[in-house]
């Protein structure tokens, strides 16, 4: 009888532990800004660095991370892309289903070739997307991205583009789920994306 009680007690303890762990899983709290309720990510078609069409809605099954920037941007954009590359490294095998794309807000200067060389210095799987100024403007507007050209007469740069530097995360089902601010930590982004990978975007 005593033995039975002991085994029973242990089973109970185990069950409690499992319940706790499960509760922990379902109660994952995202570190990024959550879009609640999630809404379908605005679809778009742009050209990738190889001249192939990149249509967002054809990325179902993948998690897509979008960043708007430009290759002449020496500080903010490389920081965001280096972070995104670090996130993919941290995800290991889970990174296979994570696609990162830079959408240029400077289509005049950023040719597909230049975009390709630029993004691939960070991660060979990255996409560099461009289009006509009108196409870029439409995508930017759909994602609430502000991009304003500023003349810099006193700088060798001639001009810069003030732009929203968020990372936008779209899940496997095409829902826009998360936004990360420019100063988000790599660990936080990786943790959130890993949760999306394991929950299948549900």
């Amino acid at each position, binding site marked *: 009888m005593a033995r039975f009680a002991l085994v029973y007690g242990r089973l109970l303890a185990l069950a409690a532990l499992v319940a706790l762990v499960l509760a922990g899983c379902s109660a994952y709290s995202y570190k990024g800004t959550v879009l609640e309720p999630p809404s379908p990510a605005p679809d778009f078609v742009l050209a990738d660095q190889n001249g192939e069409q990149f249509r967002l809605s054809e990325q179902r099954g993948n998690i897509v991370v979008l960043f708007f920037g430009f290759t002449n*941007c*020496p*500080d903010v954009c*490389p920081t965001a892309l280096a972070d995104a590359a670090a996130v993919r490294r941290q995800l290991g095998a889970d990174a296979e289903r994570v696609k990162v794309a830079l959408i240029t807000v400077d289509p005049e200067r950023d040719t597909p070739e230049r975009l390709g060389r630029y993004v691939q*210095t960070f991660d060979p799987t990255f996409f560099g997307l461009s289009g006509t100024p009108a196409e870029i403007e439409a995508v930017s507007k759909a994602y609430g991205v502000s991009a304003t050209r500023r003349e810099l007469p006193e700088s*060798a*740069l001639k001009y810069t583009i003030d732009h929203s*530097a968020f990372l936008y995360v779209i899940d496997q089902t095409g829902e826009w789920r998360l936004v990360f601010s*420019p*100063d988000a930590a790599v660990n936080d982004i990786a943790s959130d994306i890993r949760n999306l990978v394991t929950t299948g975007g549900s």
Partner: protein
Amino acid sequence: MRRMVWMCLVFAALALTACTTAVPVQNGGSTAGVGISVAGSWARGADEGNGAAYMIIRNIGNQPDRLVSAAGDVAAAIELHTVENNNGVMAMRPVDSIDVPAGGQVELKPGGYHVMLVGLNQPLAPGDRFALTLQFERAGPVEVIAEVRNQ
């Protein structure tokens, strides 16, 4: 005993000399420029176009100083810039100078102050090193060696 006092004096004199004429050399650091010490100079890898260099500048003197310019062969033009974060809209702007308070430090880092390398003359590959001459208002020129990293 007398000998020990003597040795202490020599040591103290040496230590004082070290303080006033030189600053410990650190990785990516420099020794020139009285009162100014620069550590951890680095730049992110870039194959063309523009780059940015970052570092920590310490002012161990008792007078405020300011970084007024930077020069080097690495790029066609080298400027001082900052980044303003206006609710996630990042705006990069040239600045005339970067203050380094007396006894304090300023960190040039991603998303903030940086030495902007406009028009790289060579690709920056991880492991490469390049020289920059920082010009301070009070301390004068300070040579630093920046290391290229993919960070």
